[in-house]
């Protein structure tokens, strides 16, 4: 049977078109993905940098606080301040110190300790 040439030429070849479209889609997708990824890398890099700068700043602030605290606790500065305010502060003399002697805690004497342990079941010992 003879072929209908007219109909054959006009027929759409979906396979190659689909393949071409798919190839274009993949290439375009890869390109967009690449650009997006680059953008993400840049964005995250920027965030890392910002956070590093913030970390350095926080460390500096922390150091400053330590320095301020040290200054507030400095005996030299405290001494100067006490004199400046003329508070009449002076160290306590030994005679002014009351010492309370703490009695030693007497532990109850456990008689026959070996037997006491030996009497307990092994399971209880391991707990």
């Amino acid at each position: 049977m003879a072929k209908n040439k007219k109909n054959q030429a006009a027929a759409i070849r979906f396979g190659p078109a689909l393949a071409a479209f798919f190839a274009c889609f993949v290439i375009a997708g890869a390109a967009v993905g690449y650009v997006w990824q680059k953008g993400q890398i840049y964005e995250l890099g920027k965030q890392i940098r910002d956070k590093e700068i913030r970390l350095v700043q926080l460390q500096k602030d922390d150091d400053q606080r330590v320095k301020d605290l040290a200054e507030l606790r400095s005996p030299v500065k405290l001494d100067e301040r006490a004199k400046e305010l003329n508070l009449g502060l002076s160290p306590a003399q030994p005679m002014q110190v009351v010492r309370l002697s703490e009695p030693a805690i007497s532990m109850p004497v456990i008689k026959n300790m070996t037997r006491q342990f030996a009497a307990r079941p092994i399971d209880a010992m391991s707990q």
Partner: protein
Amino acid sequence: MMALVVLAFIGLGLRLVDLQLWRHAELGALAEKGSQEKIPQAARRGDILDVNGNLLATTVPVKTVCANPLLMGNQQAAVAHALAPLLQMNEADLLQKLQPRLMKNSKGQTVTNQYAVLQRKVSDETWQKIYCTMTNLPLAIDLSKMSKTERVDFRNVAFNLRQHAIFGEDDQLRVYQNGALAAHVLGFVGTKQTTNNTSELFGYDGIENFFDNKLEGASGWRVTGMDSRKNELTAYRDEDVQARDGLNVVLTIDTAVQNILETELADAMREHLPAGITGIITRPGTGEILAMASFPNFDPNNLQSINTNNEPNRVISDVMEPGSTFKTIVISGALNDRIVSLNDTVFCENGLFHYGGITLHDAEHNHLGNIPVWEVLEKSSNIGASKIGIKLQAPRLYEYMTDFGFGAATGIPLPGEVSAHRFVRPANEWGKYSIAQIPMGQGVAVTRLQMAMAISAIANGGVLMRPMLVKQLQDSEGNIVQKYEPQAVRRVVSEDTAKQMVEALKTVVSDEGTAPLARLADYVVAGKTGTAQKVEDGKYANDRFVVSFIGFFPADNPKICISIVMDSPKEGGRAFGGALCGPVFHNVAERCASYLNIPADEHMQAPNSPALLVAAGVSR
């Protein structure tokens, strides 16, 4: 037409191959050089802390403010005017620094300098102000008179001027929190330039110098990509070696005790105008040094204040004839060898003793006859000590001297300690009257630290300890990296001998002794005075003395040992250790006892003292 297009494509292809393949390495390196930068990461110098963790020395980040004169255009005057007050510089001097200079580079070409240091050690706050000032720098230019091209050029110049012409380089500043406190222990730092044009701190003296390699840490670097505005592109980091911060050094020094010592020494300095005064406070049982001070001192924050007079730590760097404090060594040795006992009598020749061609004297008011050995210490009889030394004999005396640590460095972790071995000669090199002279503390030289450690050994039951100045090294997180333990050097005398010596030394602060002013109300004190003539032009001077008092308390259970030494006080020939250093000892001891919460000796408390009432169960 078609051929031309083909030829053009072939040409482009060849160029592409040339650029991408044949010249890849060369152009790649060039591109990297333009966008990559190696950023040094300075290590933070470790802190120095006291025994309670109080900060003594720390490092703060600062900036070195620099300029690129090439980017200034003709706006130097405007920049100098804006920045001079912030940099605390003279405007004319600053303007001079901002002017471009022609110089030859390594290839012999004439170029304009692109780097000028304007000011070092500028605080971060000031740097922020400088940055803001530069960003908003007003430029007196009328843009309306410029063409469009000139305007674009000017905007570029203005941008570079405001953003890049002045820049700050990271630097560090060492801050000593308490100013001059413990200056001789801490030392100070200097600054050295590194190969990459940054500055680095290095320890110049004291702990800063001795522990420099522990404190400095290790610097790192980062090789990374930069954009056109010199912002880092994190994704292009190639090498990233983090800096390792220096270790923190924790000392045995207690800031409060150090402050007590220094305030009392400063008062004594004002009162007696000596050439120098030193003080050491140790814990006899461990050898820990709670405080060490030498006056005149300096403020390590201000390097201009440091000079040859106040820089040396005289506690370890100067030697002196110890005078009568040395009698403790001789009598300890003699007691230990059982050559004498405390109650044996010594004839003190009524104050005048001829021996080996020289005449020995006791102090003016001492015309002593037969006295017991303990009284030799109490009255500080030169003749008594000499006679005991003669009995002990030179070889044994020399052995005791070296056992007590004289003639050798103590091993304190500070630079500049002299061992004084030249001044403690072996017995076979002694002169014919050395055996009479050395027991009274003449003809021998020691450091103040050696003497303090020797007396501490007696307080410690006869065991000589190594002076301990550093408790531990820790990292920036506070983790202990290295811990130092007390080290006993050797037993120098038996425990029984040490106890006998303590009993004898207790009498020194009695009313009959040489240092009643050193006595404390609530503690039994044991100690020894020293008054040594200074040698000038090979002769003993009659008006220049080194006076001292070294004592410890509570005598039967010593918690601290305090040494006070004054060099050439204004009192001249009327200067005595007990009279001048005794009160200083008394004040330091009283304040330290209160701060360190040292329990008072019970038998010295008044019968109705609150402590005794409570102990006796009496309710009030």
